[in-house]
């Protein structure tokens, strides 16, 4: 009984729960009117472009059904594109298209007709991926993952998540796909979260929602102690981004492109709490390590 109580106390000291995250971080540090800057990828990219912060190049934004066809035709000269709902969440509705040798569009290894693509984009506009509201289609350059990622797991696009408070990075992780996650890196879709030693710029251990690993459970590639390329640039980029936005508590997703280096993927006002599990370190604990934040959380 007493042990349980002690455990609870230890947990309370270290972990931030959903209630506290919302009440004392999300609501306190972000203004409601600014949420859309993070929730809407088109708005996010406008700000990123304004501040000349590195991110995937925007090829087209489609707002109306009537513009679907012309929008689609305007991107035909590219070899590889990503189609996204501006207001999607959890990676829903994202389609990666590549041209094959015959110059035909392919999606996840299968041929795809123009009509199917237009249908998908129409669905995005109708709000299928944004809880019923109207939405916009974002077509952008498709990232080529840095070889560093393929050493860990050979498929999909892994990304870094950095949580910042008042423009200071406090906790971060790397998310990689697994055999179960079907190319997706999100934790709740079966992706593997990997903790990061932020001072050394090294990976620590992987966590799949059940147990911890020193090497990737599918590819068996060593994780622990692996150096992250461009780590300092990556951190600087996250801070620069955080400064560009009026949001003061946010999670920033960053990818490493083969040629372009660190690029901002998206921004979250309500970053998930699983990062605490991945790092085996509570957000409260992480915040308190920075002296200037000693009074942030009750």
């Amino acid at each position, binding site marked *: 009984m007493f042990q349980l109580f002690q*455990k609870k106390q*230890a947990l*309370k000291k*270290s972990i931030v729960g959903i209630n506290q995250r919302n*009440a004392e971080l999300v609501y306190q540090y972000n203004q409601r009117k600014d949420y859309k800057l993070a929730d809407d990828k088109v708005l996010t990219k406008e700000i990123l472009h304004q501040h000349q912060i590195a991110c995937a190049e925007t090829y087209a934004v489609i707002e109306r059904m009537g513009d679907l066809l012309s929008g689609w035709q305007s991107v035909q000269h590219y070899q590889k594109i990503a189609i996204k709902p501006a207001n999607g969440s*959890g990676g829903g509705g994202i389609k990666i298209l590549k041209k094959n040798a015959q110059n035909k569009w392919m999606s996840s290894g299968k041929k795809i007709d123009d009509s199917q693509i237009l249908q998908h984009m129409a669905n995005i506009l*109708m709000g299928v991926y944004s809880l019923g509201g109207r939405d916009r289609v974002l077509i952008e350059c498709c990232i080529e993952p840095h070889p560093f990622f393929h050493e860990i797991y050979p498929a999909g696009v892994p990304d870094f998540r950095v949580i910042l408070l008042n423009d200071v990075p406090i906790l971060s992780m790397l998310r990689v796909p697994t055999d179960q996650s079907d190319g997706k890196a999100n934790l709740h*879709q079966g992706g593997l979260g990997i903790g990061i030693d932020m001072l050394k710029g090294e990976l620590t251990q992987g966590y799949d929602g059940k147990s911890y690993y020193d090497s990737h459970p599918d590819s068996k590639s060593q994780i622990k102690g692996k150096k992250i390329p461009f780590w300092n640039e990556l951190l600087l980029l996250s801070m620069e981004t955080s400064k560009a936005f009026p949001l003061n508590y946010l999670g920033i997703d960053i990818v490493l492109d083969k040629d372009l280096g660190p690029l901002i993927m998206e921004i979250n006002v309500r970053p998930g*709490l699983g990062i605490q599990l991945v790092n085996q370190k509570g957000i409260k604990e992480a915040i308190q390590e920075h002296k200037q934040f000693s009074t942030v959380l009750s």
Partner: protein
Amino acid sequence: MTTNRKVFNTTVLLLMIVPLFLLTWKMYNGYFTAQQFLPETTYQVDYNFELNAKDLDKDLFVKTYIPQNTPHQKIENFVYKANDFNVNIDKTPIGKQIEWRSEQEFPNTQHIQCSFAYTGKSLQYDLANNLPLQQIIPEEVRPYLEASEFIQSDNMHIIRKANDLITADDDLTSALKNIYKYVRLIPAIQTNELTDALTTLEKRSASCNGKSRLFTALCRAKGIPARVVGGIILQTAQKKTSHLWAEAYVQGQWIPFDALNGHLAYLPSNYMELYKGDYFLISRTANIDFDYQYHIRKHETIAQNVKSDYTLWALPLQAGIPIDVLKLILLLPICSLLVALLKNVIGIKSFGVFLPAIMAMAMDGIGFLYGSLAFVVVVAVVSFLHYPLNKWGLLYTPKLVVLIIGVVLSLLLTTYIGIQFNNITLSSMVFFPIIVLTIAAERFARTIVEDGMEDALQLQAQTLVVTFFCYLVYNCDFLTGFFLTCPEVYAMIIALVLLIGQWIGIRISEYRRFEWVVS
């Protein structure tokens, strides 16, 4: 402390204290009475009999018991349909009996009927401790110690079981409780057959009549006068089943026990008492075509002498809004509070935050069991339809239309099945909030696709749990009366929710999630 904080604290304090004053004032001014809190329930009951008879060599008759006025029940507006029968109403020691009798023959189907309004009050009896097992038994109670055809209290097995259950240390109350517990634990089965006490003991399974007879026999075997009581459990339905429970004689009082439905020294308000003793509810001339049905409808009515000043009682009293409708509005705040508590403190998730509150509302008419059955059926139908629709890449709104039609058709089908089997509960499934349900079910189908079956099922189970709690709230008559009498309590609910809204503690489910980190 910041001003913002001060204003918040003062608001919460005021919302708590002002209603508390009002409550205290009401308590001292006679507002806290049973009538004030418990709306009385009235049932309109019709006995419907159908018969035709040819080539009879004796009189044609149908006899049945009708309820009498007692402290437990009040009978009003009694009427009967005689057709060409002579009707006699007779008060016997067993109960009040109505008889239709005729010398005529009826080759065509005759409908005979009687109906009345029943108002019931639940009765709770106190069982005192330390009463001696042997009590003084008046002459007129003696017959209730003797064995009868179906209550074989003189049988060796019954006597042995009774001796097993009751030791020399037991007083009257603990003896009755021991017998009750034993009979209660016998597995219940659905059967319309007559089961006697001995068969129940040997087979260890029985419906109401077997259990009540066994309870009675075990009591009698230990010298406690006991009898079975025949009646009908009232609920909105068309049914044929009657019910049997037991009564034991304790110090000049007959104490009710229902070992099937778990009522110990308690008689629910909807248990209509008809006759005392082991008899049949209906007796009639043999060799005629005969069918019967009880048609029961529930009405909430209001006691005449409630205090309506400074309360909401004017709504049902003057505006005539039925309590059944009113309660759905009155109790929604409590259900929402419950949802907030379960979500923010415990961490239970559900499809759509307040969907459980709405579903519980819809289940009010048809019961939780059929209600959740409907929910599961709808979810299954939608998930099934969702698969091809998704594959064909249908746009969201048209997809929902197809799903709604699927849900409508499946609910109509269940209703049709309900009508076929004469099950009125099943057939009122149509009144489910179809659109809300369909949207929830669509989200379920999408959860399957996005997060896998396990997550989706878990979410569905948690939704049902929250719904169940909300359903319990809606079924608590006391709460309806309480909020009608003390609407100021809503202010306290707001205060409570303000506090929950500021509570930043770790949700109970999160303790489990984050256990890894500390261990």
